[in-house]
């Protein structure tokens, strides 16, 4: 393993080598401090109803825990990103499986877990061919081996649920991990994560301000056209403004490409949110789990990321490639 690879994986001393990383982390910290101060002031002045205050404080506290958990691995090194995304994939799969009942099908469930582990391995190894092959491989394995139990009743349901879960939480989230093969992965991943979370905040705020017509009332009664469009505009602007610093010195610094990335994060983020809402409605549950106080399950929090991770990966990769400068197949050789 070369020194450069070692540093990429574990070189926490290089966390703040790129100025963009410093700014992005600083901005997140600033926003959290500002929001906490604002809530404290409003609560102190008695401007908040007790219920709203409790809700806001709970959410803020969750963010103080979640933000370091999301940013920490990125700063520490690529190895930590791989580990964090693997844990996220497995926990999200668990929530999905327990919500839909797929967890009772132990064999199919084990195949999905195997697929998630395989995807993670391909990302760690920096083996792009295997990484892109994991989705078809996973589908074939889940559909093919699920038949061996010789239990045709429910075959379509358990196979379809398994394939769906693997595509979303294995192959989909896997793209987030694969970003870490790029030499300057820190600002890239931070940009995607922050854009996705801001997109949620933008949708909430502009929905409160301009939201009149319901977007998809059957799926998610609180979402409005005003919120969706506001989020698209603001997220696109954010990526368009911040992007040039993050991607400085790369061939994709161009304005249209960045605006497209912002638009993509806006659309895919909100679609992901709606997809997970549709699943919850279909099953008949309110939250996926009770993991994070104030947020529900991990899937309730990371719903927007499910579609953004692969979409943003391929758009950025299309523009300038990801990890082209780094050594590949670091474990398998070849």
């Amino acid at each position, binding site marked *: 393993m070369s020194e450069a690879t070692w540093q990429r994986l574990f070189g926490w001393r290089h966390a703040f080598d790129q100025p963009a990383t410093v700014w992005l982390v600083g901005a997140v910290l600033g926003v959290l401090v500002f929001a906490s101060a604002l809530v404290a002031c409003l609560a102190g002045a008695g401007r908040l109803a007790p219920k709203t205050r409790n809700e806001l404080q709970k959410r803020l506290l969750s963010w103080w825990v979640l933000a370091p958990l999301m940013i920490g691995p990125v700063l520490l090194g690529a190895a930590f990103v791989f580990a964090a995304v693997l844990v996220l994939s497995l926990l999200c799969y668990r929530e999905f499986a*327990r919500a839909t009942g797929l967890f009772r099908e*132990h064999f199919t*469930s084990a195949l999905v877990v195997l697929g998630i582990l395989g995807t993670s391995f391909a990302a760690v190894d920096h083996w792009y061919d295997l990484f892109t092959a994991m989705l078809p491989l996973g589908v074939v394995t889940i559909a093919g081996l699920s038949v061996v139990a010789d239990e045709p009743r429910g075959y379509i*349901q358990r196979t379809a649920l398994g394939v769906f879960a693997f595509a979303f939480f294995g192959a989909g989230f896997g793209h987030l991990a694969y970003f870490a093969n790029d030499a300057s992965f820190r600002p890239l991943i931070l940009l995607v994560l922050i854009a996705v979370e801001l997109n949620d905040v933008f949708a909430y705020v502009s929905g409160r301000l301009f939201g009149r017509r319901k977007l998809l009332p059957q799926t998610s009664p609180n979402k409005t056209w005003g919120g969706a469009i506001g989020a698209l505009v603001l997220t696109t602007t954010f990526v368009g403004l911040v992007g040039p610093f993050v991607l400085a010195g790369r061939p994709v610094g161009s304005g249209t490409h960045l605006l497209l990335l912002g638009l993509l994060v806006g659309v895919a983020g909100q679609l992901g949110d709606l997809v997970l809402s549709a699943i919850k409605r279909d099953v008949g549950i309110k939250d996926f789990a009770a993991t994070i106080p104030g947020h529900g399950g991990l899937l309730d929090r990371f719903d927007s990321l499910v579609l953004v991770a692969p979409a943003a990966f391929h758009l950025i990769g299309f523009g300038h490639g990801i990890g082209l400068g780094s050594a590949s197949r670091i474990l398998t050789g070849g």
Partner: protein
Amino acid sequence: MEPWRLRPARDHGMTLGERLGSTRREPGLIEAIGHRVAGALLAGHLRVWHRLRVTGREHLPTEPPFLLIANHTSHVDALALASLLPWRLRRTTYLLAAGDVFFESPARALLSSVLLNALPMQRQRTVRHALADLRTRLLEDGCGLVLFPEGTRSASGAMQPFKAGLGMLVAGTGVPVVPCHIDGAFAAWPRTRRWPRPRPVQLRIGAPLRFPEVVDDRDGWAIVAQRAEAAVRSLAPDAANPDPSGGQGITSSRRQ
């Protein structure tokens, strides 16, 4: 097109701690692996250490739901009963265990859940509520339950009267109750000893009882408990007058 049957876990929305203390817990992949490994090890232990001998296997259930009940003198009992079932049934079978012993600390609760697939039965509190929950699970989920209607391990080795809680689970349903009698477990591991001794254990399985015509009320529960108790007693090797309904196919060859 018919809708799919999407059934969230019964313990959906609970935190880990709540799950472990709840009779609604449903095991996932990790627990299933734990049960399988522990099951194989415990089956080996029973065979080697206790030379477990089983008669009447033909009475064992082939499909859930079902109840396995027995006299209770030792921790060996639950392990022996659970070891009777093939994996296909074992994976959806729960052992009802004393909450104040097996779930008394978080670590114990975790081990009982992951290794034994045990569910907590609190002796005093919320028993009625938990039994209603379990009745629903028997009928809707199609699971198996291993339980000891005496409610606790006998201190003397002699069988105690059955409690009516058994009736609350099955009165008025067709759920088969399979009576078993365990002999030798008291000598092997009475409650006064810390570790089991290498003593032989025999297990006799009787014909299943069903209580569809019994009314689901206080009197009905007592009837269920009485009949089940009689069936288990009749399987004892020294039973004076074996009950013909529960004693079919049983050899009384007691190993000395």
